[in-house]
């Protein structure tokens, strides 16, 4: 079984929002970064995967089983999930929460949980309501990592963390990847985190997947270009993606830098093209941003 996770035309309708034909897959042993603006559908998609939300049509397969099948409940033992918000019982302690969650996993390792608590500086005697948002995320991670999950689904895990904790989190995720052959689906606004650890990048906007590609190929295939306003025309626009106005011109992405150079030369021999390899942040801005 190559794919550990596969979504096929998943649809879900709310009154004011809709997931439309969401399809992507994640191979075993890889990390996928899931990027999108607020309200783009990241959390809804992850909730559908883990079974917190129902979906109207389509199919989600995890470890070869539909997440609507009876077997999925047992399969959740192999999934670690960290949500954007904390949903733990506020009046209970870290130790109680870990102990309670651990009772449902056959692969639960209490010493590993204690080790992660120590590493995340989580005092086990503290009540959940006394923890900051970042500490609650760390507790979620400690639980998700303490039962030898094969698939980690992390919903904005780094959003409440300080830079040091974020670096620790990424280091731990890389360690887990190396030691467990674990796969990770990781949603985030922070493209630098995704650039650091993801093998694949999946972008979602307004409930639709707009791009899902191997990160290195994505960064290799696209160029970030800046052009003077006067050179913009329909013929050139065919090669440009996500045009954004900037001072004295516009920026865009292109898959065919050579074609643009040729066109510009044809139009005006003195025209110069500024082109460079984009980072994920630039890709995100131009793919998700409106054409202007």
């Amino acid at each position: 079984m190559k794919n550990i996770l596969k979504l096929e035309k998943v649809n879900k309708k709310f009154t004011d929002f809709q997931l439309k034909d969401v399809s992507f897959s994640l191979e075993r042993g890889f990390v996928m970064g899931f990027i999108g603006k607020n309200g783009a559908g990241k959390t809804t998609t992850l909730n559908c995967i883990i079974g917190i939300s129902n979906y109207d049509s389509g199919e989600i397969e995890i470890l070869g089983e539909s997440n609507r099948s009876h077997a999925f409940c047992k399969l959740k033992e192999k999934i670690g999930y960290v949500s954007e918000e904390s949903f733990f019982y506020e009046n209970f302690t870290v130790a109680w929460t870990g102990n309670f969650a651990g009772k449902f996993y056959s692969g639960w390792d209490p010493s590993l949980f204690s080790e992660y608590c120590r590493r995340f500086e989580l005092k086990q005697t503290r009540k959940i309501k006394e923890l900051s948002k970042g500490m609650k995320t760390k507790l979620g991670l400690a639980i998700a990592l303490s039962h030898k999950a094969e698939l980690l689904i992390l919903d904005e895990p780094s959003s409440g963390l300080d830079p040091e904790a974020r670096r620790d989190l990424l280091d731990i995720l890389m360690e887990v990847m190396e030691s467990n052959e674990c796969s990770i689906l990781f949603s985030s606004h922070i493209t630098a985190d995704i650039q650091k650890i993801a093998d694949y990048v999946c972008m979602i906007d307004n409930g639709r997947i707009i791009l899902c590609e191997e990160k290195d190929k994505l960064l290799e295939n696209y160029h970030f270009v800046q052009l003077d306003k006067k050179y913009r025309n329909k013929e050139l626009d065919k090669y440009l993606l996500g045009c954004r106005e900037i001072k004295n011109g516009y920026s865009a992405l292109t898959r065919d830098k050579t074609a643009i150079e040729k066109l510009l030369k044809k139009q005006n021999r003195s025209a110069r093209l500024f082109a460079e390899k984009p980072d994920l942040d630039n890709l995100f801005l131009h793919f998700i941003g409106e054409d202007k």
Partner: protein
Amino acid sequence: MKNFIYKELSLLKSQIKFILFIAVFIPVFFIVSGNAVELQYLPAIAVIVLSLPISINSIYIDEKNNSNRFLLSLPLARDQLVKAKYIGTSALILLLIPLLFIAETVIDVFAKVNTSSYFAIILSVLMVILLNCLFYPVNYKLGYMKAMHLYRIMYLVVFMGIPFLLARISRSFSADTISRLKKISSTAAGIPLLLAAACFVALLFYLSLKLSIVFYRKREI
């Protein structure tokens, strides 16, 4: 399932002060007021009053912390969560029976008041479970806030309706019939009646559980 009973017991810890307060306040109130008639019904009243925090608090805390999301991320199915809630809270309410039997015996011996019979205690427990069986499907369908309105109405109906019903019964039936009914409830002759009530509640429990499962499968968390 034992994990959930452990969870329900742990949730109850936050209510322990309230339960202890009620457990001490009600007997003291009735003893100080010197009204032997009210004291007679003390164990049966205690069932209703002590069961309230168990069933409502359990759902309230899950709702307040939005913990169903946490629970659903664990290797559990929605059906299991509903079953666990039904069985967990009912098990705790049933646990009250031996405690109240002890309380009844203590009152009988020390206050020298012939309290409501064991029959009345078991009947009260069944009534609370029955009320929960009506409440839970509404909760799983409409959510806690809307269901709570219904629950309050149900309790008002029960608290105000029962004395009204008892007054009607005492007026409608002769003293002889009522004393025969009392006799039935205090002897072994009441056991078949109790079993019939228990069977009815068990049937309702099953139907309510099935309905809640159907509602919860479709509900957006």
